C-alpha cells in the first residue's frame, strides 16, 4: 500500500470517526485534551497497521477496537497515574462545585453519562461500543476480542449497573432538592 493511499484513508477516517473517537476516549479518561491525544494515537496506530488491515471488520469497528486498547494502555500507564494523583489533589483543594457544574448535575442525561463514566471498564467497553458506537453484538465481540455471549452478559450487567447508578443519582438529586 503506497503512502498516498494510506494518507487518503487516514484523512477519511479522521473526518468520519474523529469526533466519535474523541468522545469514546473521553468516557475513559474524562479529560478532553487527553481524549483528543488518545484519538490521535488511535489514528497513528491505524495508519501504521493499514497494510495489515484486511477488511475483516469495518473501519469503524477496527478503529474502535484500537481506541479501546489505546485507552486501556493509557489508564495503566505511569503518565496517567501521575496525572490522576495530581487531579485528586486539585479536587481536594476545590471541594465546591461551580454553579455551572451544579446545573449539569441536575440534568438527567448528564447523570446517565456520569453513570456510564463510572462503570467498570469491561462493562463500559461493551456498552459504549454497542450503544454509542452502534455496533452489532458480533462487531463488539470482534472489537474486544471476546465471545458474543460474554458481550451479551456484560451488556446486561452494564445496563443493570447503570440503572442502579441512575437510581442512586436520582436519590441524590431528590435529597439535594428537599
Amino acid at each position: 500500500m503506497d503512502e498516498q493511499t494510506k494518507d487518503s484513508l487516514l484523512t477519511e477516517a479522521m473526518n468520519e470517526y474523529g469526533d466519535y473517537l474523541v468522545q469514546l476516549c473521553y468516557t475513559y479518561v474524562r479529560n478532553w485534551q487527553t481524549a483528543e491525544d488518545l484519538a490521535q494515537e488511535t489514528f497513528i496506530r491505524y495508519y501504521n497497521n493499514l497494510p495489515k488491515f484486511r477488511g475483516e471488520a469495518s473501519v469503524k469497528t477496527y478503529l474502535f477496537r484500537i481506541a479501546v486498547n489505546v485507552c486501556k494502555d493509557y489508564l495503566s500507564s505511569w503518565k496517567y497515574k501521575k496525572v490522576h494523583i495530581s487531579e485528586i489533589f486539585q479536587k481536594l483543594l476545590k471541594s465546591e462545585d461551580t454553579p455551572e457544574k451544579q446545573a449539569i448535575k441536575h440534568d438527567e442525561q448528564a447523570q446517565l453519562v456520569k453513570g456510564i463514566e463510572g462503570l467498570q471498564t469491561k462493562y463500559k467497553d461493551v456498552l459504549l461500543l454497542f450503544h454509542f458506537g452502534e455496533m452489532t453484538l458480533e462487531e463488539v465481540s470482534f472489537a474486544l476480542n471476546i465471545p458474543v455471549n460474554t458481550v451479551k452478559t456484560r451488556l446486561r450487567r452494564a445496563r443493570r449497573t447503570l440503572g442502579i447508578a441512575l437510581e442512586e443519582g436520582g436519590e441524590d438529586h431528590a435529597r439535594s432538592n428537599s
Partner: protein
Amino acid sequence: MQDPIRNAINEAYKDGKFSNAKKIDTRQKVRNQKKKFLPFSITIIATCFVAVLTIFLLTSSDENIYKLKGTSSSQLAPNDVAPAYMNRFEEFKELLSYGGMDEEKQLQYLAESDWLLQRAIESGESLFYNSQGLSEEEIYNLNSLLFYMYEYVANPSEEIQFAIGDIKSFEQLRVKAEELSNTLASLTNNEYISTAQEQTATNSSFLNADFPQQLVTISVFLFFSTLLYRNWKGNRNLFFGFIQVFILIFLLWIICFGNDAYMRFGHNETMLMQETLTQIESDIDLVGGENLSYAATFGNYRYALINLYDDVSAFSSFERTDEAYIYQGAQWGKQKFFTEHVFVDDETRIFVIATQEGHTASRIDLIGDGKLGTFTINIEPGKANIYGIYIPSSFNSFSTAIYDTNEELLH
C-alpha cells in the same frame, strides 16, 4: 426511538471534537514517526553493543593474561611426546613382568603423574611436549590408556590376559591403545575423563549456577524483558524505558560475566600458573618472566610448581570440586623442595613432594616411627618434578629423609 445512551453521550459530549489542528498534527506525526523511531532503536542497539564491547575489553581472557605474565624457559622447550610415553609404558610392562606386582616399583610408578603427558597429547603442543599428527581417536585412546594403566597399578586385581610385550614402539601403541585401554578399563572401577571433559565449569556464572538459580535468573530476565517490550510498545515513558534497558544490560552482564566468571580453574598449565600468580601477587612482588616448572595430578588434587625469579619458586595446589579444580593455596620461597600431604580416603593419603630444577636429590625416604616401616622413591636429580607417594592413613607418624646421589642426607 433513539438510543437514550447514544443521545445522552452525544448531548453531553457535543463539544468533543477532533480538531482540524489535531488532524494536521496527526498527519505530521505519521510522516515523522519513522524518522523518530530509527534513531531510538539505533540508540538502544548501539548502547547494547557498546556495553558488550566494553565488557569484552575489560574482561581479559586467561590466555592473554598468561602471555603477558609468563614465558617458558629454555629448559622447557617442547619434546616429542612419544619417548616419554613409551618410557611410561615400559615401566608399566616391567611392573607386569613379575609374578606379583613389586611394591617398590608400584610406589615408584604411582609417584609420577601422567597429567602433563595427557595434556600434551590432548592439546597437540604444550609447554613440555608436542604430539603432532595424532587423530582424535588416537588422542582419546592413548590418554585413556595412560589413565587405566595408572588405575590398574593403583588397584591391581588380576593378571592381564594379552600380549603386552609385543608392543615395542609408539607407532604400535597408537594402533593397540584402544584394545589395551578397553581391557584395562574392564579391570578398574574409575572411568577416564579427558581434561577437556573435566572442564564443566564455564566462564559464565549462569552456567555454573544450580538449576533453581538459573530458573530465578531466567524469570527475572524475562520479567524485565516483558516490561521493556510493553513499555516500548506502549510508548509510555521513555525514562522508565531507559531504566529497564539498563537493568536488562546489567542482568546480561550478571548472567554472562558475573563475579563467578572471574573464578579461575586449574584446567590446564596456563590456568594453573595464571591463577597461582593472581593469588600470590598481593604477597610477593612479581617481576615478570615467571614460568611453569612442572604440574601434576594425583587423584582429586592438582599441583603446579612455578619458577618465579632467581631461586624463588612457588608451589600451589588445586582441589577438584564438582565442577573444576579450585585453587587451595600456595607456598613459596628459595627452597628446592616443597612438601604437602593430603588425605584421599580413610585408608590412603598422598605425600606430595615437588622438586625444583637444579636440585641434587636422588631419593626420598618416608621413615615411619616404630614399626611403621619405610616408603622409598627414587627421584631424578636436577629435574623439576612433582611426586605423589601413596601411603596408608595408618602411616601417620614419620620423618622425611632426602638423599643425594652420594647417599648423603640433604634434608
